[in-house]
């Protein structure tokens, strides 16, 4: 596209001659000879070059100053009589790219136009570059905002699993841990996790997915669904891996509720079928007894039907009882009775595995407000867990569990359960109260300690755990003597009583 020149001069002959000359060099030239026309043209169009005699009109000087201010890219070449050139230079200084003396030297005019053209080209390039740069900044801002605001935990990791970047949600829940190692931050582990999806992505460049249980900086456990993606350099080598984790704790909790209900119903179905068959039998005996007028059979049948109806009723009630959210059924109970009931349930199991059970239950601990059914089940679970920990330990010959009941300084009842079993690493310790986490492989359901812990929690109690792999574990369960005011409704089913 030819560059557009506005030629401003009062001398019509000179203007016409210049127009002719310049047009031959492929410029698009428009001439104006009055100030009004100048204003009109300036308002209407955008000009690349102004070829102007600033002194052809009194107002032209100030007009040029305004033009230079508003359109900094316009190239101005001044034409002036020799006696006015110095004045022009004083006024416009370097804002004008060339000062040409009238009469005009055509060579000087050519050079001035070439210089102006070069400037225009450079300016255009510069403009394009600036535009791209600001677009790049905009994209960068947008990407950064996307990275920061994604409602997932995002971390970028190097080959040593060190976090090199983390988004806002990650930092919120796991701290500003850039530089730390992923397994340390997510799981409080001292070494890389098994089946690490980041390691796999480094190896094969594919996206991998796992489900994990991670622990936040506030000690809360989350179920997360993790996906990875490789980040490559210009050569296509994987330099980092991005890990994106979605918090699915709420979904899991819902699922857990349904699954445990399903498990319970599944385990009951065999019993239910037996009961229904026996009920059928009762009905048959009753019918045939009446037919045969066999009084004995009728009496026996009605007994059987009553028994079966009762059994079925109890079972259905139990299902409803466990399936429905309900409040704890508080009763006052002697602490020693509670503890003895718990011990008697576990005693035979400990004897079977030759584990020495050391019991200390003082008689003077008074009474406690609890839901006896749930609390007994919970404490039994903790003790059974200690037995399991001893059974799993193959390194030591003699195993013992101590069960001590006491009252602490806060007037709480404390149950201390200590075993010298297999012990737990930090990861197991963090996860053990999570539903469906089990360290016992196919032997465990992952239900027991979850429920046991919730029962204590709902009674306003606390559970503290100390453990060392290979040495054993200590559980300290503290319970308030009286029902707390802000007791929650229990909203999970119990697998077994």
């Amino acid at each position, binding site marked *: 596209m030819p560059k557009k020149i506005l030629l401003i001069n009062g001398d019509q002959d000179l203007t016409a001659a210049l127009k002719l000359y310049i047009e031959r060099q492929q410029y698009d030239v428009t001439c104006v000879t009055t100030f009004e026309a100048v204003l009109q043209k300036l308002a209407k169009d955008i000009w690349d070059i102004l070829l102007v005699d600033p002194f052809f009109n009194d107002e032209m000087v100030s007009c040029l100053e305004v033009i230079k201010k508003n359109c900094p890219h316009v190239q101005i070449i001044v034409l002036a009589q020799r006696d006015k050139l110095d004045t022009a230079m004083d006024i416009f200084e370097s804002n004008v790219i060339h000062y040409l003396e009238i009469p005009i030297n055509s060579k000087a005019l050519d050079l001035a136009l070439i210089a102006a053209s070069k400037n225009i080209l450079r300016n255009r390039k510069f403009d394009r570059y600036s535009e791209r740069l600001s677009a790049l900044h905009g994209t960068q801002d947008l990407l950064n905002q996307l990275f920061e605001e994604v409602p997932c935990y995002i971390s970028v990791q190097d080959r040593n699993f060190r976090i090199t970047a983390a988004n806002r949600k990650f930092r919120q829940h796991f701290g500003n841990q850039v530089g730390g190692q992923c397994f340390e931050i997510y799981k409080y582990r001292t070494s890389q996790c098994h089946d690490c999806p980041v390691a796999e992505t480094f190896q094969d460049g594919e996206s991998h997915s796992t489900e994990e249980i991670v622990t936040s900086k506030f000690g809360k456990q989350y179920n997360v669904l993790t996906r990875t993606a490789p980040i490559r350099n210009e050569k296509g080598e994987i330099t980092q891996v991005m890990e994106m984790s979605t918090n699915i704790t709420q979904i899991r909790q819902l699922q857990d509720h349904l699954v445990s209900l399903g498990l319970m119903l599944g385990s009951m*179905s065999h019993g239910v*079928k037996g009961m*229904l068959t026996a*009920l*059928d*039998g009762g009905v*048959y*005996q009753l019918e*045939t007894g009446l037919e045969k007028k066999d009084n004995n059979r009728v009496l026996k049948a009605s007994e059987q039907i009553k028994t*079966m109806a009762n059994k079925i009723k109890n079972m259905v009630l139990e299902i409803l009882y466990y399936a429905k959210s309900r409040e704890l059924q508080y009763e006052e109970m002697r602490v020693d009775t509670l503890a003895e009931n718990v011990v008697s349930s576990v005693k035979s199991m400990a004897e079977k595995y030759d584990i020495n059970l050391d019991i200390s239950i003082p008689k003077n601990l008074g009474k406690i407000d609890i839901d006896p059914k749930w609390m007994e089940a919970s404490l039994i679970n903790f003790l059974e867990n200690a037995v399991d920990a001893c059974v799993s330990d193959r390194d030591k010959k003699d195993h013992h569990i101590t069960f001590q009941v006491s009252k602490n300084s806060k007037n709480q009842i404390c149950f201390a359960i200590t075993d010298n079993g297999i012990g737990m690493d930090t990861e197991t310790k963090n996860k053990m109260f999570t539903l469906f986490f089990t360290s016992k492989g196919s032997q465990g359901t992952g239900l027991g300690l979850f429920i046991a812990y919730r029962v204590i929690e709902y009674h306003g109690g606390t559970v503290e755990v100390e453990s060392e792999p290979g040495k054993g574990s200590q559980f300290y369960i503290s319970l308030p003597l009286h029902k707390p005011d802000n007791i929650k409704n229990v909203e999970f089913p119990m697998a077994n009583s």
Partner: protein
Amino acid sequence: MKKKILVIDDDLNIRDYLVSLFNDNGYDAYVAKDGKEGFKVAKETIPDLITLDIEMPGEWGPRLYRQLSQDSHLKNIPVIVISGLSGHQYAVVKAVASLSKPFDRDELLKIVKQTLT
């Protein structure tokens, strides 16, 4: 002569039910509460048919079935499985029938009649 049916089930109520049902329909019924007792009674009575529960304390159904099939006097006795266990139909593959608890009375009698004629 009346045909002999041996009922093996750990649930007394179900045993009583099956015994009445078979007696009322012209069979002689014998009972056992688990696999071990079932084998003993089978040896003594040599029944024409056995109804067998799968899950029982002590010795369970499939084990008894193996013992029966290894005994020359007992191996040809037809067996009907009656169980509440899911998958019971796979537990004794050679059974003449496998019924789920609670079973249909008429269906059982029909199978018994067909098997014994």
